[in-house]
């Protein structure tokens, strides 16, 4: 059974999500209302999936995502966010979240997303594709030569995802296999996360936050 931890600063929402997940056969092993306890409890119970809100009162779900991903390589983070927090969503995804769902998604959509996240797939919504396209565009116009680039095909695929087409519809339109489309989509996210990790490490070394020998 897939184990899930629900992190949200509001108890009413937390309970509602927990109830939905339990009703659909998931085991909710822990809940948390702020970033600190989220990271501590995640390390204690090692859930398969953390369903993470980004507004955690005074603390940040982006930081919690980064810490959970760093401490628990096998735990995946699914961001459940209000549509208003686009910049935060992008940061959380760069920090290692496997995908994001808007809070207005139905219980069935949430259950489906948790299942896919547990299986190791990134949950791609149109909104996430739009954010990634924007981020690659920003990186391309920036001064960083080492920044990842999208191939033409990847750009094409992401664009169609951002327009709401399903992987199946994209495969038909571009005459590709369903699997190839999925690979393209997953690659775009992995490239960005890898780049972000490299950047963080480089920043840490440059600022003497870590011993270069052990990095």
């Amino acid at each position, binding site marked *: 059974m897939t184990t899930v931890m629900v992190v949200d600063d*509001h108890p*009413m*929402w937390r*309970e*509602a*999500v927990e*109830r*939905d997940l339990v009703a659909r056969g998931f085991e909710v092993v822990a809940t948390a209302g702020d970033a600190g306890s989220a990271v501590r409890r995640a390390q204690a119970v090692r859930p398969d999936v953390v369903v993470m809100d980004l*507004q955690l009162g005074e603390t940040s779900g982006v930081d919690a995502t980064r810490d959970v991903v760093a401490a628990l390589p096998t735990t995946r983070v699914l961001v459940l966010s*209000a*549509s*208003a927090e*686009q*910049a935060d*969503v*992008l940061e959380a995804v760069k920090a290692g979240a496997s995908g994001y769902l*808007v*809070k*207005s998604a139905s*219980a069935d959509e949430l259950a489906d997303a948790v299942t896919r996240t547990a299986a190791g797939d990134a949950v791609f*919504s*149109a*909104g*996430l*594709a*739009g*954010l990634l*396209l*924007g*981020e690659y*565009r*920003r990186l391309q116009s920036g001064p960083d030569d080492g920044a990842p680039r999208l191939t033409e095909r990847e750009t094409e695929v992401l*664009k169609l995802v*951002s*327009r*709401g*087409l399903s992987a199946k519809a994209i495969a038909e339109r571009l005459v590709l296999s369903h699997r190839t489309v999925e690979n393209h989509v997953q690659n775009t996210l992995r490239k960005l996360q890898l780049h972000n990790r490299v950047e963080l490490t480089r920043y840490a070394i440059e600022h003497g936050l870590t011993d270069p020998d052990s990095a």
Partner: protein
Amino acid sequence: MSVPLRHRDLLAPLWRVVVAFRLVSWVLAVAGWFRERDDYPGMVAPLAVLAAMGIWTGVVTVAHSRAAGRRTRMTLLDLGVTVLLLAATVTTQPEGAFGQGAPIVTSIWVAGPALAMALARGRGGGLAGALVVWAAVTFLRGYVGDREVFNLTLLVLVSVLLGYAATITRAAELALREAAAAQAASAERERLGRAVHDGVLQVLAAVRRRGVDPELTRLAAEQEVALRGLLTTGPEVAVGTADLGTALRLLATPDVEVAGPAEPVELPAQTTAELTAAVREALANTAEHAPGARSWVSLEPADDEVVVVVRDDGPGIPDGRLSAAVDEGHHGVRSSICGRLADLGGTADLHTGPGQGTEWELTIPRGTDR
């Protein structure tokens, strides 16, 4: 914080400079007369003019220290009195002496009103004031020599530059005021946002998640998304522009997903409003003709253009249906979407067919000023 700002005149330091110039130039005029007193046939006339200049300097000093005395009317009066005093200097020298290069007792003091006019009316005021003063001096002298040309150039340059500085300062003051207002609005929204986030929003979410009654669930979901949208502050953008991403995200509902970059897509506020209205029209069209269909709004900025794609998974519009609607007099789609885009210098392309949904591709060119 916006209250003291409204009452602060950012030009006040420049007015103090003009007043200082008036005082210093009057002292210089007195000193100049004392040094060259042998060049004047009498004592009474130049001393009378200097005394009048001193009184008027006192008047403008008091006037310029308050807002009412910084208006155009006061600076014009200043100019008039100064020219009159300049004319009064004919009593200080025998006839024709000015044409021989005899000293004029008012000296550089007469430049004062040109500077004041520059502050009150900007570049144009400074230029006009400088020209009037120079014309009066030239008329008195009766000739134009190298020194006069040099003095004119300096006077015009200083007045125009000061006027320019005044204009820029006024614009900065306006921008500062707008920024303060925006900041206050944003703080207020944040305060409301926290209250709504912790209260109403959670209840709506809970009602929706419990799913007691389908109609209630749907309504709760709609209101939840709408409320979240209202709380969106969006990234900060320059005055007069608006972020198209924030505007489009306000259109999100449970049936409408909006995708775009996290970074702001800054466009002139009017362009953003028109483009958003066109998207709203396309979404309304879907809601009317394909109830229950899902829609996606995708914002795709490029260097030279901005593309917004509005797609739905409805049954699509059969061939000829759109032009038939136009023939019947229903101009909704064409005038609202195509017309709006044409007004913005852009294009609206519709891709549709039975079973294919509808896809509007709205493209507008983008200036280089992004």
